[in-house]
């Protein structure tokens, strides 16, 4: 990892909601091929950071570089063609559109042939989506919706996939399944930036982690080390 070039480099990021300073000088890096996780309590600024990278929020200062190119000022709808996909918090699948249409939207910037090709790949990975392809997204269960959201993000063949709280509201058995899928995706070459409140699960699959507290990075390092760190265990892993 010493010689690899940073895929995503965030430096001194400051994001405000009106007068509220939500992200205060956050810096971190994601190397190609890694799983990096941002953990922290509710309101620590994790989602805000991801949404800023995705272009949904405009940071006030700081830099966001992807493969050496600045993303500041790039509108959200241009991120997909740069190779960045965000699987947003709360999944935000299109409820009234069928599973198949949701996947098609994921490949909006791709040609019809590529979309067709990717749909096969996604159905292979998520056989349940194939079964439910003609159902409206809103009729799926929580776990299926999360799979649809991930499948949809996958449709654009992203180099970097950002996932915001993929375990939220899911039964423990499903959480296991979702994290296994994230691991598989990473092994097949997708770089992952994962935001999670479920710190133990996130740390167990990640290479490196950053701990966010009230808008600041307070700890960072090897995920396995953090998993056994006394302070992390007390604050986020229930002792």
């Amino acid at each position: 990892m010493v010689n690899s070039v940073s895929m995503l480099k965030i430096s001194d990021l400051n994001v405000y909601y009106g007068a509220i300073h939500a992200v205060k000088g956050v810096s971190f890096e994601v190397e190609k091929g890694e799983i990096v996780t941002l953990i922290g309590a509710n309101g620590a600024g994790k989602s805000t950071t991801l949404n800023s990278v995705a272009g949904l929020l405009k940071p006030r200062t700081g830099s966001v570089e992807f493969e050496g190119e600045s993303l500041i000022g790039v509108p959200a709808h241009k991120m997909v063609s740069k190779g960045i996909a965000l699987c947003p918090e709360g999944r935000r699948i299109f409820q009234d559109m069928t599973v198949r249409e949701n996947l098609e939207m994921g490949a909006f910037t791709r040609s019809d042939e590529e979309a067709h090709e990717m749909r096969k790949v996604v159905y292979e990975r998520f056989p349940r989506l194939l079964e439910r392809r003609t159902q409206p997204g809103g009729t799926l269960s929580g776990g299926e919706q999360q799979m649809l959201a991930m499948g949809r993000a996958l449709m654009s063949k992203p180099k970097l996939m950002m996932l915001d709280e993929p375990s939220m509201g899911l039964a423990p058995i499903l959480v296991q399944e979702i994290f296994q899928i994230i691991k598989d995706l990473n092994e097949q070459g997708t770089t992952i930036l994962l935001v999670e409140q479920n710190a133990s699960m996130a740390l167990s699959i990640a290479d490196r982690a950053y701990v966010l507290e009230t808008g600041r990075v307070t700890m960072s390092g090897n995920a396995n080390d953090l998993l056994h760190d006394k302070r992390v265990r007390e604050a986020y892993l229930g002792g």
Partner: protein
Amino acid sequence: MGFLSNLINGISLGSVYAIIALGYTMVYGIAKMLNFAHGDVIMVGGYLCFIGMSSLGLPTVVAVLLSIVGCTCLGIVVERLAYKPLREAPSLAVLITAIGVSYFLQNSALLIWGADPKVFKSIVDLPSISLFDGQLVIGPINLVTALTCLVIMVCLTLFTSRTKMGKAMRACSEDKGAAQLMGINVNTTISMVFAIGSGLAAIAGVLLCSTYPTLMPTTGALPGIKAFTAAVIGGIGSIPGAALGGVLLGIIEIFAKAYIGTQLADAIVFGVLIVMLLIRPAGLLGKEIHEKV
């Protein structure tokens, strides 16, 4: 035969309302705003076609096309100049702006074309169809209007269910943020919807003026409001709802005129709206909106 003839007139007028209501409902669906200037685009469409046919002496088809293209451009320009800067503004500001645009269009028409009514020549120059030994007479424009509405409905349904842009439009209507994450340019999509809605308004204007040939700067105002009513009755945001609401409203209006009284017809039309809002606030085909927790 009187009943049948009223029904045909009702369906014809309702088809015009339906075409206008489609524009209202699509714009509401994606931009979550009531474009009260929509009715006035109908009037502009009527004038453009009138000028094309009588002043420029263009063939009917070309004049109609001119009207559609003109209104499509007008729709895009109005959205860009008046509504786009207010994308993040409170909905009341957008509503007031739409009313302002409505007055702007009416008064511009007054300046350009004057206050005296123009007599619009029907775009369909065919003799009436006489059935049952002349007991039932059908105006050819009625058939053309109903048929046009049907074709538009089929095209729009195919567009929104089969094409990539149509699906992108539905995605934007549901969740603009998520749509952007898919790579969909929301601003372009909203422009496109305004373009389609305004093009439809032009068609509605031409058909309306062909049936009721008096063309004035205020021609579009009342049909616009009634089409809005139709869109609400059908369920605002719903495309089939707008068509259903439009046709129903047209039939109710014509029957009210025939059997109750001309003066009361409009009151009855809006009375239906009030009753509908009391019984089924989401409209006939509208979805109940649940507060998300």
